[in-house]
């Protein structure tokens, strides 16, 4: 199971300036609440913002290491 550092590192690979807050919702590491703040989101639709984060976590989502991901994105 990815721990919160793995998750923020994976996101920062795609969004180097991102501030990432990861909350493990039920202690098993696969139900996460993640919020990402990055300048890269400026001018992007919510869908595009979320897609950027999903791309960064594509592997963990595909193999269901992350089963549930509640995501919020915003610009600083």
């Amino acid at each position, binding site marked *: 199971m990815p721990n919160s550092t793995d998750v923020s590192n994976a996101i920062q690979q795609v969004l180097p300036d991102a501030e990432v807050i990861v909350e493990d919702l039920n202690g098993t590491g696969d139900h996460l609440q993640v919020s990402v703040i990055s300048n890269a989101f400026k001018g992007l639709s*919510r*869908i595009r913002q*979320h*897609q950027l984060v*999903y791309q960064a976590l594509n592997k963990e*989502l595909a193999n269901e290491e992350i089963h*549930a991901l509640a995501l*919020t994105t915003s610009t600083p």
Partner: protein
Amino acid sequence: MEPKTTKRIESLINASPIIVFMKGTKLMPQCGFSNNVVQILNALGINFETFDVLSDEEIRQGIKEYSSWPTIPQVYVKGEFIGGSDILIEMYNTGELKEKLEIALAS
């Protein structure tokens, strides 16, 4: 994804003004995120169709590729993908969702 799956998805998306690809059904959602979307649309008193991806693995994987969005549920309004649970909640809270749906259903 096989062309026949893409065609199936497109016909589902265009068959109704609002369709939710979800886990379970309106009355028996099988996942919290899918349930969020059903509750939001019910709260707005909006009529919508659903498709239970748990009943069809081809659609379950195909829809993720179709919208390049890796999670379920997925909400489509007049053929346009508008988001999953998180975005629906955000749009609902800002009032954007009610407006978008009213415009879509009026046209």
